[in-house]
Each structure stands twice: as C-alpha cells, then as structure tokens.
C-alpha cells in the first residue's frame, strides 16, 4: 500500500542537461540514498510543471516531487508492504 506523506524534504540533486536528478533525500532525521530512478513524469500545478520521480532507496519505493518554480522538494508517498 502507498502511504501519502506530502512533506517537504531536503534533497541532494545534480542537474544534468536541464534535468534534475535526485541523489539522496533527508526525511525524519534519516538519510536515504537514491539507488535507482524507476520512472519520471510531469504534472502541472497551475502553469508550473511539477517533476515527479519514483525512486528506489534503502530497498523501498518512494515518490519525490520537485517544484521548479519554488525550488522545493516533497516526499509525496512511500510504499509500505
């Protein structure tokens, strides 16, 4: 099951060729290394695009979003078995 989190998180990312690539995120005092980006997609929030990343970290699945207008990252949801 997915658990909706929707909390702002700190993210270490690199920017390659006009694209954001999350490498690690910090959530509730823990650091999660992004092992793999499984899927990327975009959604719109008003006129601004939101970039979504479905990632694997510490053996579990997480969905992060990046708001390129406000330069903030959110942990959208996590997979709980």
């Amino acid at each position, binding site marked *: 099951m997915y658990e909706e989190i929707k909390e702002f998180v700190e993210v270490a990312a690199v920017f390659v060729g006009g694209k954001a690539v999350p490498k690690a995120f910090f959530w509730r005092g823990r650091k999660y290394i992004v092992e793999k980006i499984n899927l990327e997609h975009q959604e719109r929030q008003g006129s601004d695009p939101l970039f979504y990343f*479905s990632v694997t970290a510490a053996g579990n699945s997480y969905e992060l979003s990046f708001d390129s207008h406000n330069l903030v990252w959110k942990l959208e949801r996590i997979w709980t078995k």
Partner: protein
Amino acid sequence: MDEVVMHIDMNSYFASVEQQANPHLAGKPIAVSGRPYIHSVVAAASIEAKKFGVRSGMSTWEAKKLCPGLIFVPGNPAKYIDLSGRLIKIFRDFSPTVEIFSIDEAFLDITSLDGCTLSDRVQPFRIAGEIKQRIKDELGEKITCSIGIAKNKLLAKLASEKKKPDGLTIINENNLDAMLLSSKLDDFCGIGRQTLAHLQAMGIYTVAQLRQVPLECLTAAFGRHGRDIFNMAFGIDNAPVVASDTGPEAKSFSHTLTLERETSDRKQVEAVLLYLAEKAARRMRQEGFCGRTIHTLTAQRSLPQATSNGLEIYKVGRQLMNFDLPVRVVGIGVSNLVKKDRTSGSWLPEVQKEEKIITSLDFVNDRFGENAVFRAATLPVFSRDRRVAGIRTKMRFN
C-alpha cells in the same frame, strides 16, 4: 503498392506504468483502481492479474474474489497522460503520420519510410524494434507494447492483438487468410459485444461463416455498419491513417478545468464537461467555425459532420471519458476546423430547431454577459462552485 500501417498497443498500460514506478509491484498481480479501493472498479489489470481473469471494468470486490492476492494501486490519470505524450513524441520521430487512437494506442503510417514493404518484413521489423527499444530506454523496461503491421488499420490492429505482451506481428499476403480465419469475430475492431450478439443470433459465429453472408443481409441488419462488417471478413479497410494534430500549432477550441480535488462523482464531472463544451462551442460560433474532431484529455473521435453544437460536442466527449478513475482535470476540445458556410444550413428540422435555440442563446449571452444563460445540466458547476477551481460567475443560484 500497399500501404504499410503500424498499430502500437501498450500492454496493460496503467498497470505497467505502476510496475515501472515501483519494483515491489513488478511481476505481481496488480489492479489500478480509483480511491478508495472498495466500491471502485478496475481501470487496468497487470499481465499477472489478467491470468486470474481480472479485467478492466470489473468491480474491485469481484476482482479480489478471482485473485485474493491482488494488489490495488490508486490510478493517476495525469501521470498516464504525461507518459502518453512522451510515447507519441517517440512515434513521431519515426513517422509524420501518427493517429492517436486512445491513451495507449496509436497508428503510424510508415509507407513512405525507406524500403518499407510488407512482403519483405526486414525493414518494418527493424523500425518496430527501434520503437520498442526507445520506449524501454526513455520510459522504462517494464513498459512494453505489442505492435501489429499490415496494409490497413483494421489488419494492423488485429495483428497487434495476436501476441501480448511485447508482441510483433505482421500480416501480409502470405498469411492474410490464415490470420483472418483464425480470428474470432470480436477480435476485430468494430465488432463489439452488441454486434457480436447480433451476428450470433443470425447464426454467424466464425469469419468463414461471415464470408458466406451476402452484403445485402448485413446492411439490412446493421445499416451503414453492415458494409464495414462485410469488409472485415476479407481484411478490407479503406480508412487512411489520419495524423492527429495535438501540437501547439494545431488550431483547436478547447477548454480545460482543474477541479479543486479529485472526484469520482460522475454527475459533477459531466456537468463540468458540458459547461466546457458549451464554452468551446460558443467561441467557435463567435469566430464562425465548426469542427469535426472532438477530443478529451485522453482520447479523440471524429464525426461525420462538423459541428459547433455544445451539446453534441459534450455527448461525444462523455463517451470518450474514462469514468473508471477519479477525475482531477476535465478538458474538451474541437479541432479539424472548417469555416462555417452560412448558406449551407442543414435542412433537417431537428437540426434547424437546435441551431435556432443556439443562436438565441448566443444572443442572450452577448447581451447579458457570459453564462447568463446556459443549459440547466451545467447548474451543479455553479451551485457547487467552491468545489471547482477556476470558474467565476456573477450569477447566484439558490
């Protein structure tokens, strides 16, 4: 020389996207559904779930009974639409003529591509292989498609149905009859449940039997559609691949509206859709246009005749909408535009009456401002306007 038409059908599209996003779902029976899972329907089943008999459109409890280990995943239409857009971009790198058939299906006319013939399958197979590879590289390896290649859309679609997942099938003169005769009647695009039942009631159960039926019998039973059914048995389809214009340069009248939150309230969504259809239609009439192609966010359909009638646009839009998933964004548009010729008004009395009403509605709206008059069915939009973002109205309803 024959045309070369390719049909690309994404395999268990929504479910594959979810399996791609989350490796914990890969290889497992999953069902993409609305929220909450109970009292919802299956919008898409994974390949693994289909083996248990789980099908889209089934209620979630029915699906769970067939497959107790079934994992339900809430669907996200915005995600599927975005990824479809990326798929279409890939397809357009291979052919300028891409007809978007649904959110997960498209036709490509590849006739003009170098060395592309049906008799020598090397080149079409190479193109299909490249498309498959690019989808894997750019979207993800779990997102697969079945590709059918043939001389027309009917046969290309039939071919793509032959092997799932990750299929690649060609129908050419060598195997045409074998392919047709081994197909079930409802394998053909255009023979739905109703038509199938009708054919069976006439004692027609196989393609071989259908070939024996005189055209007159079929037109008597099915009207205009009778000729299509007659042609199907022989693999004939004269409809060309028509490039869908979805680029920003394509002129269309369209409106979208983002709801404040997702809803599964069909009545509410239909009301918004009607409101948007009326809005688009009114702009078309102001600028003197009619349009033949109606599109929603995920699908489109072309009408035999151009229209600028909001109700007619809405009715097509409603058929195109997928109500199995909760809706956040509602959109409708009309493209394939023609300048309306004032002299060639319709002679059909009903149509004339409808046009008269529309003209008078426009008149009132011109006089008293937008939304002074609108169809009663759009009322819920306004009576619940706090639930709908982006609509402002000066009118008050109690």
